[in-house]
């Protein structure tokens, strides 16, 4: 059914509202009172929950409800990611708005019996604050302080049903742009909103659109960069899987604003679910006349093709991405010319990241002022972070720009795991930097992160604690960029290799202070000379750890120790006189390098020791085996 005009869209929206109204009640209904109402059970379909068998849980729920004749009244959905991955698989029940955490397939009969038949909440599945032991059925502290703009529909709507998206104001912004705004007005709104690219560099989106529009050409292109490559980052994946139409709508808006009739979504092939959702969404949008010719009865024509990335990190760089679409080797080329001047097939091209695009429909609907009121002076709106590492609440969080790291890590994130001490936050993906404790209260935005030696990147946020060796962390990230270098320019191809060699020397205890100076100098030279952003930022993990954790480097080099006890070459396991001679470690040692008989103190052959730590794990006597 092709929508011929705005009225048809509005009529469809009015019809479709009932699909989602249960989930968006103004006030939660108590579980008792909700009995007899239409209920929606949302089973998180995010990547984490999905891996923890959430599709099976959804299936079992449906079977059980069906068996008990409740399937008309209680509907089960699998929307996108809820964000609170730590406690997955999660389910939410509306309109009573009850959230259950760490649900397993075995819990399904209990949930159905207790919740839907008896009208009682299953207490043990409610979120419990690890510190206060308080249980939360709704308004989980994890979501306190979060503001969802890009993720507004993720987890709330069924992503494979365009009607739910339309019910949630979907394609209203497109209609506004097509019939009530000129392209220049659209660009002005974006410029005034202060929206900046969420893919990493933070370039003002409105300006990018303006430049592309100004380039004279017979064809222009819009590309959605969905080649999310930062290890651990999955915000783009969540948008694509949970709210694919918001990306399509934003691309349509961009197309009409810059004068493009074709769009490409460059999505990594490792995201099959996202690809499937996009395929479904594109087919639906075409069916409703929202892609194709004469969109909503206007003279605007636009269509979208999917292109799959083969897993090269560097293809997230826009020029490399464009070359990859063209069928060439995915490697960056020098700018200028910028894609806005000469991009895909030599035509002006606007490349926007998924999260950036997901922000656009609400900006168009609610206005530039609404958006620019959120955030800091230079960084407006929100940012989604993939919170990972040694933090209690691992997951996806969307917070206003200017939120402090402390709030994200200690309030939303629930603090450090096992009450250990925070050491650093690594932000900005593999080429970001490590931020020490003293900057925990810095309001984070593009500028402040750069100023403290890190970067926003695409929003990776890995929390490190006292057990992490910062030299090893630097080496880990540096190794990633070295492996993912496209190999085109000398600085990155050879430079990152040499950096890695020096780091390896240091972690193996053969580094010298001279190496340290040499490495620091090389870092600055690579930043100064590398061809693309990947190379220019590759030294960041080293430079920021050198800046804030130089003492750890010195310890490795001068004292030949790894203070965190991570770098194996520098570890030495010893058996002390507390050994009772139980021979447990002797039996466990994979190298058979521990000698000792019953009731005699055992000895480790240091020459042959692998430093695997199996002996220490096995030992039942505190202090009998130590490492240093």
């Amino acid at each position, binding site marked *: 059914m092709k929508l011929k005009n705005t009225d048809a869209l509005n009529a469809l929206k009015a019809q479709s509202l009932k699909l989602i109204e249960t989930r968006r009640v103004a006030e939660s209904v108590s579980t008792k009172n909700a009995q007899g109402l239409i209920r929606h059970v949302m089973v998180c379909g995010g990547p984490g929950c999905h891996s923890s068998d959430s599709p099976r849980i959804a299936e079992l729920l449906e079977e059980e409800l069906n068996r008990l004749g409740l399937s008309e009244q209680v509907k089960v959905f699998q929307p996108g990611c809820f964000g609170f991955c730590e406690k997955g698989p999660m389910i939410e029940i509306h309109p009573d708005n009850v959230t259950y955490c760490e649900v397993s397939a075995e819990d399904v009969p209990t949930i159905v019996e207790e919740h839907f038949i008896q009208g009682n909440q299953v207490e043990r599945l409610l979120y419990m604050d690890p510190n206060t032991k308080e249980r939360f059925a709704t308004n989980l502290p994890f979501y306190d302080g979060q503001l969802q703009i890009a993720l507004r529909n993720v987890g709330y709507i069924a992503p494979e049903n365009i009607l739910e998206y339309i019910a949630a104001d979907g394609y209203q912004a497109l209609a506004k742009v097509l019939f009530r705004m000129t392209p220049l007005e659209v660009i002005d709104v974006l410029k005034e909103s202060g929206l900046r690219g969420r893919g990493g560099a933070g370039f003002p989106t409105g300006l990018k659109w303006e430049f592309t529009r100004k380039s004279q050409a017979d064809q222009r292109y819009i590309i959605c960069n969905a080649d999310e490559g930062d290890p651990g980052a999955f915000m783009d994946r969540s948008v694509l899987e949970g709210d694919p139409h918001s990306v399509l709508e934003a691309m349509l808006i961009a197309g009409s604003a810059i004068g493009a009739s074709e769009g490409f979504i460059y999505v990594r092939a490792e995201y099959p679910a996202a690809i499937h959702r996009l395929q479904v969404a594109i087919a639906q949008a075409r069916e409703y006349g929202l892609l194709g010719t004469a969109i909503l009865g206007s003279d605007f024509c636009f269509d979208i093709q999917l292109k799959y990335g083969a897993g*090269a990190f560097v293809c997230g760089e826009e020029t490399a991405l464009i070359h990859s679409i063209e069928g060439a*080797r995915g*490697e960056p*080329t*020098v700018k*200028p010319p910028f894609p806005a001047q000469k991009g895909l097939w030599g035509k002006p091209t606007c490349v926007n990241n998924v999260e950036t695009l997901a922000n656009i429909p609400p900006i168009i609907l609610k206005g530039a002022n609404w958006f620019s009121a959120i955030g800091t002076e230079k960084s407006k709106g929100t940012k989604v972070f993939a919170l990972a590492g040694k933090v209690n609440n691992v997951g996806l969080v969307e917070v206003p720009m200017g939120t402090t790291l402390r709030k994200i890590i200690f309030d939303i994130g629930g603090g450090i795991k096992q009450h250990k001490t925070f050491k650093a936050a690594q932000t900005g993906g593999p080429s970001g930097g490590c931020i020490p404790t003293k900057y925990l209260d810095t309001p984070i935005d593009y500028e402040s992160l750069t100023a403290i030696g890190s970067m926003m990147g695409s929003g990776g946020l890995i929390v490190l604690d006292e057990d992490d060796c910062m030299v090893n962390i630097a080496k880990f990230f540096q190794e990633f960029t*070295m*492996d*993912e*270098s*496209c*190999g*085109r*320019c*000398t*600085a*990155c*191809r*050879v*430079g*990152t*290799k*040499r950096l890695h*060699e020096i780091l390896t020397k240091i972690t193996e205890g053969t580094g010298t202070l001279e190496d340290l100076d*040499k490495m620091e100098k*090389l870092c600055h*030279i690579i*930043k*100064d*000379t*590398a*061809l693309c952003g990947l190379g*220019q930022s590759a030294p960041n993990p080293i430079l920021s750890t050198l800046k804030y954790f130089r003492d750890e480097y010195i310890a490795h080099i001068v004292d030949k120790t790894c203070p965190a006890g991570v770098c194996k070459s520098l570890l030495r396991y010893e058996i002390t006189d507390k050994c009772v001679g139980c021979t447990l470690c002797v039996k466990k040692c994979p190298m058979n390098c521990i000698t000792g008989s019953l009731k005699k103190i055992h000895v480790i052959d240091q020459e042959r020791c692998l430093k695997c730590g199996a002996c220490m794990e096995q030992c039942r006597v505190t202090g009998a085996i130590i490492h240093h």
Partner: protein
Amino acid sequence: MDIQLTINDISLKVPEGMTILDAARTINIDIPTLCYLKLNEMHYNNNIASCRVCMVEVEGRRNLASSCSTPVASGMVVKTDSLRAIQARRAMVELLLSDHPKSCLTCAKNMDCELRRLAAELGVRAISYEGVQSEFEIDHSSFSIVRDPNKCIRCRRCETMCNDVQTVGVYSAVGRGFETVIKTAFDLPLSKTACTFCGQCIAVCPTGALTELDQVDKVWKALNDPDQFVVVQTAPAVRVALGECFGLEPGTIVTGKMVGALRRLGFDRVFDTDFAADLTIMEEATELVHRIQHGGRLPLLTSCCPAWVKFFEHQFPDLLDIPSTCKSPHEMLGVLIKSYYAKTLGVDPKNMTVVSVMPCVAKKYEAARPELAQSGEIADVDIVISTRELARMIREASIHFDHLKDQEFDHPLGESTGAAVIFGATGGVLEAALRTAYEVLTGETLEKVEFESLRGMDGIKEAVIPIAGHDYRIAVIHGLGNARAVLEKIQAGEINYDVIEIMACPGGCIGGGGQPYHHGNMEIIAARAAAIYREDRAKPLRKSHENLAILGLYKDYLGEPYGKRAHQLLHTSYTGRKKI
């Protein structure tokens, strides 16, 4: 519109769109470069900014800029000589050297290596960042090109040349990061690819990663074998370039000294491929007339260039009937030496070695083609060496080239006309053919023998030449990419010609892959072309059919041009090949 900027405190105005590198050159500031190479006349431009050597400081910029790829902007303040820029440049060269074999003393590119020169110019005295070095297998598989990826600096010049200019597409960067290397598809040995062996990759390679297969020792061995009668022949383009190897100005004609040097090296006879060029004109012109008269397929494509021959065998296997069946000139001369001349001398051709000195590395491959041998056994040409290899032999033999007295080629296969020598430059074959065709077809004397419209560096030149009431539509093409474009149009039926001259190398044989390295200086190619035409003007005879030795050869031995014996000895056939 001119752009005002400042470079090293000097204010200057340059046209919009110019790079910082070119702008600096206008005020005699030569920023060191390595991967950069721009050959305007060849429509070749490698400014991919991969080596990061030409880095300069631009005020207000966070990082350094690669001057080869950064356009000037109004009010730009550039420093090419700041400590930051100099240190970065040196660091890039050090990084490249850290992954480069230190075998400079024994490298074929020794003294001609751009990396080595740069290291010297930048005062690199130590390599600060030593580490593991790449280990790749050396590809010795072909008869023409040796590929040593260990010496590759990933400047990608070869890739640009092979893919963009020649459209052969043999090379591509493969792998990521430190493991990135320029390879063939599926890592096939070059001999198994569609490589035409034009050698333009060698011509632009800044290091010893791409070199010709060295045949010098084989020549020495033959020269020192008392049972072998060793005959040498030299291509037209060699005589205008060899002098460069001995410090003479580009464009110096050294024909006489070259002949003297070859005699000193011990060759029993010194013949001239030019003789066979004149012979080619007789055969090819007759073939063309034959095709026109007998409704044969047109256009006739020249077949002197072995790289071009291999190109069409791979890329246009459905057009195998349109190239001329004439062997290339040195192969014609080779077979005549081992038949006609051997008979005259009474020498068993099996005891003869024919050495060709060519501006070309594809000729090395060509000489090994099985069909270019009598009875499949006696190769027309035994060994091919490049201009560069000849220069090395002359040095090895301690010959002071500059002091050699001019000498003449041996008779009779050293006789030639001006029409033959111009084979060395693009357009020369057709110009020579027209000189003969005009006189043969009209019976009149051609007064103005120089066809200017066929000369010069344009990639595709077209002309319609009326001779005896027939308008001959001709085209002259150099560079395989240009050839592909025209052949595709012919395939599609969009255009047609009567005859097309095609040479694989930009500029023709004077720009061949076996010539002294031009290092991006196109004036050298221009000077060689000018010398070719000077040599033509200085010849008493300038039309192939006036070559008395040729006429004698037909009378005494070959019979009619394009006749039975000529076919047997001077013509060949082609083989369709796969694209990869």
